[in-house]
């Protein structure tokens, strides 16, 4: 039983948390790709920028002496998401819209998004330095330990308060997104434009409005993902820059342009990463009692060494591109 609880702590909870963050990031990337047809690299900076906005708000709350029952990061999240959405709209207006107007190729937009990445990254580092920050400097990070001795486990089940909230918030947002895309007129228009942009225009759909809504959703969800990542670990200027490739991997594995694919892809990559570095000896140790001496398990038995954790996502990405470039949900292929 102890082993099972250990497995839950190490794989199920961490994989789920990581998967949620990847999924929220990948939704934005996949929507932008579906509507505007380019790979938006600066999405990482929307995430990091959003997290810093939330951090500033949380610090302001702390400075004003506002005490909240749940971590302040979650309380300020809605405000931060609004601000991040405005930031995303501003970036589009300032950098991508002029290029689109000129009829630039998607490749040019991709390069422009790298320029934006560098600028925002530079600005964040300029103001916040290269160090890391924590949301939990003024308040404790609550850790729930469930004692499972009753079912024969010597280890407790451990989950932190931000992790519980994170899983809940992701679930609610994904559900909300689902209803938006399938029930609301604007959501359907978004799907229509991703399906066939020319026909959407001909149908009289206000494509400029759809583009704006896309940026708002991408910015808000990106901010959510970034803030939650910062709440789970620490906040630093290259917070999301380091995980933008796994997020792209999630979007591509799920099928670019497919919102549900992005969610599935995010969870898949999240679990794959945690499973790949998981030390199986910890779970299989009881077998040592029945195994003959020459077959005793080595102290570490992981599929790949921990240093290569992020590499797992790239390998999955490359294999997907080779075997099924359209992804699991058949996204855009050409």
């Amino acid at each position, binding site marked *: 039983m102890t082993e099972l609880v250990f497995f839950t702590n190490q794989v199920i909870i961490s994989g789920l948390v990581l998967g949620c963050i990847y999924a929220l990031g990948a939704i934005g990337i996949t929507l932008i790709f579906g509507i505007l047809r380019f790979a938006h690299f600066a999405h990482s900076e929307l995430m990091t920028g959003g997290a810093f906005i939330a951090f500033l708000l949380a610090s302001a709350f702390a400075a004003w002496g506002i005490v909240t029952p749940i971590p302040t990061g979650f309380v300020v999240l809605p405000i931060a998401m609004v601000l991040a959405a405005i930031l995303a709209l501003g970036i589009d207006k300032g950098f991508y819209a002029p290029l689109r107007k000129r009829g630039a190729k998607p490749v040019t937009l991709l390069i422009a998004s790298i320029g934006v990445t560098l600028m925002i990254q530079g600005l964040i580092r300029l103001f916040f330095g290269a160090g890391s920050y924590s949301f939990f400097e003024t308040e404790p990070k609550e850790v729930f330990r469930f004692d499972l001795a009753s079912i024969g486990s010597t280890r407790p089940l451990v989950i932190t308060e931000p992790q519980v909230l994170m899983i809940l918030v992701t679930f609610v947002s994904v559900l909300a997104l689902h209803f938006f895309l399938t029930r609301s007129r604007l959501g359907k228009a978004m*799907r229509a434009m991703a*399906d*066939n942009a*020319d*026909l959407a225009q*001909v*149908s*009289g*759909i*206000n494509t400029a409005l759809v583009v704006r809504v896309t940026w708002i959703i991408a910015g808000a969800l990106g901010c959510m993902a970034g803030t939650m990542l910062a709440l789970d670990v620490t906040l630093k200027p290259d917070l999301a820059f380091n995980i933008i490739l796994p997020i792209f991997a999630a979007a591509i594995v799920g099928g670019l342009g497919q919102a549900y694919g992005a969610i599935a892809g995010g969870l898949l990559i999240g679990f794959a990463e945690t499973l790949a570095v998981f030390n199986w000896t910890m779970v299989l140790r009881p077998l040592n009692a029945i195994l003959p001496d020459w077959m005793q398990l080595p102290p570490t038995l992981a599929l790949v060494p921990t240093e290569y954790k992020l590499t797992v996502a790239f390998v999955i990405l490359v294999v997907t591109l080779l075997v099924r470039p359209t992804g699991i949900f058949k996204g855009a292929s050409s």
Partner: protein
Amino acid sequence: MPLIELKHVVGGYGGAPILNGVNMAIEKTDIGVIVGPNGAGKSTTLKAIFGLLKVTGGTIEFGGENIANSLPDKLVPKGLSFVPQEKNVFTSMTVEENLEMGAFTRPDDFSGTMEWVYEMFPVLREKRRQPAGELSGGQRQMVAMGRALMSKPSLLMLDEPSAGLSPRYVIEIFETIQRVNKEGVGILMVEQNARQALAFASKGFVLASGQNRFTGTGAELIADPEVAKSFLGG
């Protein structure tokens, strides 16, 4: 006053103009058919009306107002609708969602219009929960027309509605077009099946090199030996 009137329209995609002075007038009761050789500017005329390319000269009057270079999201609420030739359905969306997209610009309740469309195309009611990409070519054409009718247009423009359809469906589509016209929707369409389409056209336009060559009723054009020889294949 005609429903739509093109006066000496010049336009193109930047560079040399494709339309060099096109004149046309359509009443609400008309079925207008544009015929002509490849590259004559037939589809381009429809696209110019719908704001999909730059009009550099002349006027396009719709309901007494110059609409040249207005964009589709302004034109659709005014009563114009357009069915492109290719890729004219949202393949990943259901039939019903396709129709809803046609009504995007309408703030009012459009359930009556949807009922009207379903009555016109009963097969669409059966398949309304199916993705449009799974339908046959003829059914897709119906979805595309249904989508365009959802905005309750006064002028419906169709770009080669019979392209790629089997002869049986061509007849069906042409009959539907006449039925739509009887319900009070003006029609302006480009057709390759020129003889067949001119047979029911109240107005026919023969274009060549981006200019009107012949104008008349459908019957007149079919009867004209010169038109028949040069443009209708003898």
